[in-house]
């Protein structure tokens, strides 16, 4: 059933959502005072889900790799699978980094359980915001892969693209009532894609980041841009924590009745991040830690996992207390 494309009307969609709610814990974007937030779908809020627009505030790692977790306690519960609804292309791209990082030679059982039991029903963006820059890092504001199902908002419903067999199975009970997408549906989807992509490009027209960003960053170890743009950094780690691909962690042991080993999000901007027992650190200066974050995003992660570590979601820009814009830093590096 993978690769099938259907149209689904709003009424049938509501039906389907109710069915899913019985099997999954559904997390979907809801509008709150300060933006879109992934919240559990309930009977009360299911009609106010924001499908298109833009990515939610929280990156998916919040749920797959909680900020602080006992990693020696009971295993993650596969019986409580999460269905992520309305995930955007930038966050799907981030998932593929996390999948590689926590699925390699030493697969992480908690991440694996959550990921394998969970499902991703993504949605195209329709209203990018000023911090969006997926198209500068080779992305698009609509997913091409990595989803179980993808939704394209249409007049009166959605175009549903099936990405995996598990995604197809989500539609099984309503399959007979689904219509194969017709030409006008495909045209409407293409129009939305083009319009949204243009919108992202328009918001980024002041940046001229042509060529490979990996080469752009890699060649500029000595650049003055690092110290310049780190100038307003207050080392809060918000960029790290908000980033959907940052996944550095610390381990901390607490012994009460038994040994509890906690895994928590770390941040490479913190001065103590790489400090060894003797007090030494390879990055004593803030500008060096700042530079490391860019090298990690644009070079090291690419070397490790074959994919740029920045998805252009813009959360680091939005969360920065020092008004640091990653695009401006990149712009200051010589192409």
């Amino acid at each position, binding site marked *: 059933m993978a690769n099938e494309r259907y149209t689904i009307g709003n009424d049938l969609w509501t039906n389907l959502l109710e069915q899913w709610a019985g099997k999954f814990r559904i997390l979907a974007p809801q509008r709150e005072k300060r933006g879109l937030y992934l919240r559990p779908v309930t009977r009360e809020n299911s009609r106010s889900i924001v499908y298109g627009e833009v990515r939610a505030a929280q990156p998916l790692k919040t749920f797959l790799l909680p900020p602080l977790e006992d*990693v*020696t306690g009971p*295993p993650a519960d596969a019986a409580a699978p999460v269905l992520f609804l309305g995930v955007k292309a930038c966050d799907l791209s981030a998932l593929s980094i996390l999948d590689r*990082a*926590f699925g*390699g*030679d*030493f697969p*992480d*059982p*908690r991440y694996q359980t959550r990921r394998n039991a969970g499902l991703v029903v993504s949605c195209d963006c329709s209203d990018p915001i000023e911090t969006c820059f997926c198209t500068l890092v080779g992305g698009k504001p609509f997913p091409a892969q990595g989803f179980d199902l993808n939704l394209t908002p249409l007049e009166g419903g959605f175009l549903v693209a099936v990405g995996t067999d598990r995604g197809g199975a989500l539609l099984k009970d309503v399959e007979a009532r689904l219509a194969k997408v017709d030409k006008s549906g495909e045209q409407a989807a293409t129009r939305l894609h083009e319009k949204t992509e243009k919108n992202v490009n328009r918001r980024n027209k002041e940046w001229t980041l042509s060529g490979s960003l990996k080469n752009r960053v890699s060649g500029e*170890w000595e650049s003055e841009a690092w110290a310049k743009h780190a100038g307003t950094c207050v080392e809060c780690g918000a960029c790290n924590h908000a980033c959907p691909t940052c*996944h*550095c*962690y*610390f*381990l*901390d*042991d607490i*012994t009460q009745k038994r*040994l509890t*080993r906690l*895994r928590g999000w*770390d941040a*490479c901007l913190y001065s103590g*991040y*790489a*400090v*060894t*027992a*003797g*007090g*030494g*650190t*390879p*990055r004593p200066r803030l500008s*060096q830690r700042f530079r490391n974050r860019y*090298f*990690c995003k644009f*070079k*090291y992660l690419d*070397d*490790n996992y074959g994919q740029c570590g920045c998805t252009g979601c813009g959360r680091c820009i939005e969360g920065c207390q020092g008004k640091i814009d990653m695009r401006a830093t990149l712009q200051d590096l010589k192409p």
Partner: protein
Amino acid sequence: MDKPTSPYQSQPAVIEKIIPETQGIKTFVLKPERPFSFRCGQFAEVTIPDAGEAPFAPSSSCHETERLEFTVQNVGYMTKRLHQMKEGDTLGVRGPYGNGFPLDEFGGKELLLVIGGVGFPPARALLYSLLREKDRYGRIVMCYGARTPADVVYKYQLDEIRRQVEFLITVDRADSGWSGNVGVVTTLLDGVKVDLAESAAVVIGPPVMMKFSTLKLLEMGFKPKQIYLSMERKMYCGVGQCRHCMIDRFFICKDGPVFRYDALKNLPDIWG
């Protein structure tokens, strides 16, 4: 044997014996609950109750899996707590992690070990392995530098080591009882003659010592691919996830800790 439910799960290891080496260095002889197999140069994550975990390379022979020895200097928060532990106390160990020394690449070669401070513990594990099949290798020369005579570890084994390898020792600062060489470990290298074409050098020690030893070896004519470095960085997971130990794209915990210098030489700030 139960499969650990988590990659972070350690197995208990009782401290059977504590050997005081110097004022600030002790050797802990551990009896792990289950045999602990490793290759020399690999490391383990050692749990110190109420303190946390830290990575240490065993100083014992990898051919002994019932007992594990770690020789540890009291330098930071966790090592201080470790030094407060008593015989009979229980620690945790998990691992082994990392690549270890490539003994096959050393076969048939003259080996020059350049060792500083508490680089001796993993070097001792390497020596145990080398000496077990001594015929596989050419000459073995070990140059060891300690800060002062009081900081020299394994004093009770040095005569035995001298009988089996060419062992040169120096201290940065002498005391009245010291009649040997004074100066940093690279000063010993001036007196070492090796067959450059058929040699390999191994460097283990603190970062500054490793940097200058590597530069000295290059000056002596060693090629980058003949120099093997056991690298160190802050480390948590040991399994290539937490990213604390990275040098450029390399995970020291997974791609290392032993690197050939030709893999690192063009990377910035490797001596951290």
